Each structure stands twice: as C-alpha cells, then as structure tokens.
C-alpha cells in the first residue's frame, strides 16, 4: 500500500516576466517502510518537489497524497522534514530542540523529555543532550535535526540533501548511521541528493529526474541485500548502476 502517491505533478513559477517550469508531469509512488531517493542535476526541481510533498507550496497541476489524503498544507503528525541546514534554534539545547515540536503541541514535559531522550539515544547523542548547537559539529547538529524530525512520530520523513554540507567522510558515516536509524524505526524515507553514490548506497529505489522542467525519467530498483556495509560502494555492480544513472542524467540533462 503506497504511503505517498504523486500524480501528474507540475509546478510553474513566475520569475519577473518569465514563467519558469520547474516540474512537469511527475508521477511516482512510495511504498511503506521503503527508502527512496531522488537524484537529478542541479536546478532540476528536486527541492520544489519536496516542498510540494511537504505541503509547503501548492502544485500548479496534479496532486500529492499521503495515505490517500491530499497534501495541501504541512501535516506534522504524518510528515517530518530534515533540511540541508539543520535550522536548530541556537538558544536551545539539543534536547530542547528535539522537544520543540512536541512543546508546541503542548505534550506534557515528562512524556516529551522521555521520548526525546530516546530519540537522542537513537541518533547517538544522548551524552550531548544539554549541549548547545554552537558546541556541536555539523554532523552532530544534523543528527539532532533528524531526531527532531522523528519527534512527532511521522510515517514519512522527507530529507532535502541533509548531508550536502558535510565533508565526504562525515557524509559517508552519516549515511551508514541513517540506515541504522531507518531500520530501527521502520519509517518511510524520501531522500533527495546530488550524490549518486549516496543514492545507490542508501535506497531501495532510485528515481532519476531530468533537468528542468523536471520529470521522472527512470526508476531503478537497488537489490543489494540489507544491512548494507560501506564496502559495497567499491563493488563492480555498484559501479555499473552508478554509470547507468550518470548516463541517464547526462543524456537527458543540459
């Protein structure tokens, strides 16, 4: 049963006088508990698509649905988000940041503290609960952001290039840890990235998007068995898949 269904999505913007066609006829579905990644060239509309799926902007045509219900506004109980910039509130501790969405919902302090400490534990930061964002590294801040995204226990997590600002080693490690978290929580994850390696390593399915106006030009099933170790990245099979995606993007690209 698909958690997310996107049908015929299109989005046009006005930029000055000209109309910009960001997305054109995007259609796909994501099943429950799957890890799906969207890759595509820069500026192809990936972030726009994510914003529509999050309910932050409305599509020009078509629609997105979650569990059958149309997405017209943010649904924090069902959809959690992690952005490229962790956007942690600098004057709150890590724990307070994770608790923030629950505090807004007026969840009582004891309950939310317990739940959020569990989440911090899940992302490996329980010792840093009282630290402030400026005391944490970039990777740690992003982990707090992930814990925060899980705070309201949504079905679906949308992630917009969350590791793009990290250096390569940190990025690889975060990917590995993310898979860990995903397997433990059983969420459905929709992930956006530039990095083909990251996409293939992490996902069950990779959606390949064309350059603007963005369309899904291919859907690849990634069959590596789970749990996946980092050394599959060097394997021949991995390289073949990456080449394939690369060709798809560059042929239909600029």
């Amino acid at each position, binding site marked *: 049963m698909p958690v997310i269904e996107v049908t015929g999505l299109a989005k046009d913007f006005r930029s000055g006088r000209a109309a910009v066609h960001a997305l054109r006829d995007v259609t796909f579905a994501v099943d429950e508990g799957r890890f799906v990644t969207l890759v595509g060239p820069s500026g192809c509309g990936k972030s726009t698509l994510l*914003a529509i799926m*999050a309910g*932050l902007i409305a599509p020009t045509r078509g629609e997105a649905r979650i569990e059958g219900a149309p997405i017209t506004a*943010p*649904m*924090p*109980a069902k*959809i*959690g*988000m992690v*952005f490229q*910039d962790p*956007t942690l*509130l*600098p*004057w709150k501790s890590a724990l307070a940041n994770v608790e*923030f*969405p629950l505090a*807004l*919902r007026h969840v009582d302090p004891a309950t939310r503290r317990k739940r959020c400490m569990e989440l911090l534990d899940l992302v490996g930061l329980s010792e840093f609960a009282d630290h*402030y*964002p*400026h*005391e944490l590294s970039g990777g740690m801040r992003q982990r707090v952001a992930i814990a925060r995204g899980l705070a*309201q226990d949504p079905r679906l997590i949308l992630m917009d290039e969350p590791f793009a600002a990290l250096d390569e080693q940190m990025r690889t490690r975060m990917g590995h840890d993310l898979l860990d978290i995903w397997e433990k929580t059983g969420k459905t994850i929709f992930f956006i990235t530039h990095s083909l390696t990251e996409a293939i390593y992490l996902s069950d399915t990779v959606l390949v998007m064309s350059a603007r106006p963005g369309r899904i030009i291919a859907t690849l099933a990634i069959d590596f068995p789970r749990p996946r170790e980092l050394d599959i990245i060097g394997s021949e099979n991995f390289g073949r898949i990456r080449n394939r995606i690369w060709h798809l993007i560059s042929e239909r690209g600029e």
Partner: protein
Amino acid sequence: MKARHIRIMLIAAALLVLWELIVRSGLVSPIIVAAPSDVLLAAKKDGAVFLRALLITVTEIGVAIVIAWTLGIVFGLIVGSSYLVAAATAPVLSSIFAIPLIILYPLLMAWLGVGPLSKVVFGVLAGFFPIALNTIDGVRAVDRGYVNFARSIGATRLETNALIVFPLALPAIVSGLRVGTGLVVIGVIVTEMLASLGGLGYVISYHRSLFDTGHVYFGMALALLIALGVNIALTRLDRRIGHWRLQQQGES
C-alpha cells in the same frame, strides 16, 4: 589587570592635580574651565538642587525609554514581517532619521509647553527611528529556512513569529536599542537645556548663564554618569542576549 587599573587611576589622579594647578595658576580663566575644587564646592553647595533635578531628568528618560522601546520594537516587528512593507517603509524611516530632529523641538515646545511632556515626546521621537529600523533589519535577516521549518512542524504564524523569528532577531534589535536609548538620553537632556522648567539640563543651563562654571561642570558630570550608566546597562543586556550568537558567528 590589576596593575593596569592602578596605572590608569594614577594617571587620572595626576591629570586632576595638573588640571587644578592650571586653573589656580591663572593660565586658564576659571570661567572657561572649572578647577576640580570648584566642582566639588558646587556639589557641596547645591547638591540637593542638582539631585532633585537629576531625579526629574532620570524619570523623563525612563518614561521615554519605555515608550520608545515598545513603539519601536512593535512597529519594527509588524513592518518587518512583510517583505514588501519593509522595503517601502525602511527607506522612509532612514530619510526621516537624516533630519536633525532637534529642529522639531520648538514645535513640540509650542504645542506641548516646556514641561516634562515635551521632553518625553522628543525623547521618544529621537529613540524610535534607530530601534524601528534595526528591528526591521533583524526580522528580515532571519533565514527563510527557519520559517519553513516552523511551518513543517505545524507552528501557527504567531508561534513562528514569537518563538522563532523574534529570538533570532533579538541581537539586531538589541543593537538598535543601544543606539536608540543613547539618543533618548541626549534628546531629553539637550531639550532640557534648550527650554525647560526643571531637570538637569535646565539647572546646567541656568548656571551657565550665571557663569558658575563649577556648577556647570558638576552638572555635566552627572549627565555623563547617566549616559555612561545607560551604556553599561545596555552592554550587559547585549552580552546576555547574544552569547550564543557570538559563538555562531565565530564559526560561519
């Protein structure tokens, strides 16, 4: 640290003695520059008068600060929350800020008399513009990502503005408060000098017209104390508000 403090105090003491000698020796007329001993004499003689005047001035300043802060911040928050309104309004505020507001005082004098009211109103006028401008800037500078985050967790407009945008804008607001409050203090004291029934500025002016230089210098010292006191208080506030911001900026 200690040694430096002692050195500064010694230098200050030496300067005071030098100052006293220069005036006493007749090199400079005591009408133009008061000797430290004249200042102390003035304090002893009319200390009570000055204190009463000081109280009036401090009250006027206090009231003006409260009003200017409130008006400036609220106005800035409302205007700042819309890109278009901010883009249209901020330049107008800037232009008005370029006008020497002191020339408006005679009008206030004619309309409101020379009592405390005209002083307070002028003080509010003087402080309002930098506070409003800085608040607008602070709100506009908040990263769009934070607003997106707030929406994604289902925060209402009010919650977003109060719990996320406002604290993020606070450092900028506080620097506006520093500039604006300084202007309030100057505004009140200067208008008291120009035309008033009472207050520190009035007493200073009165003694100037009588060439009681010692009294004038004493009054100035009190005025400087107010200005410095306000400055120190605001620096404290700035530091408390911004401690996380400074760290953050250190990294990016």
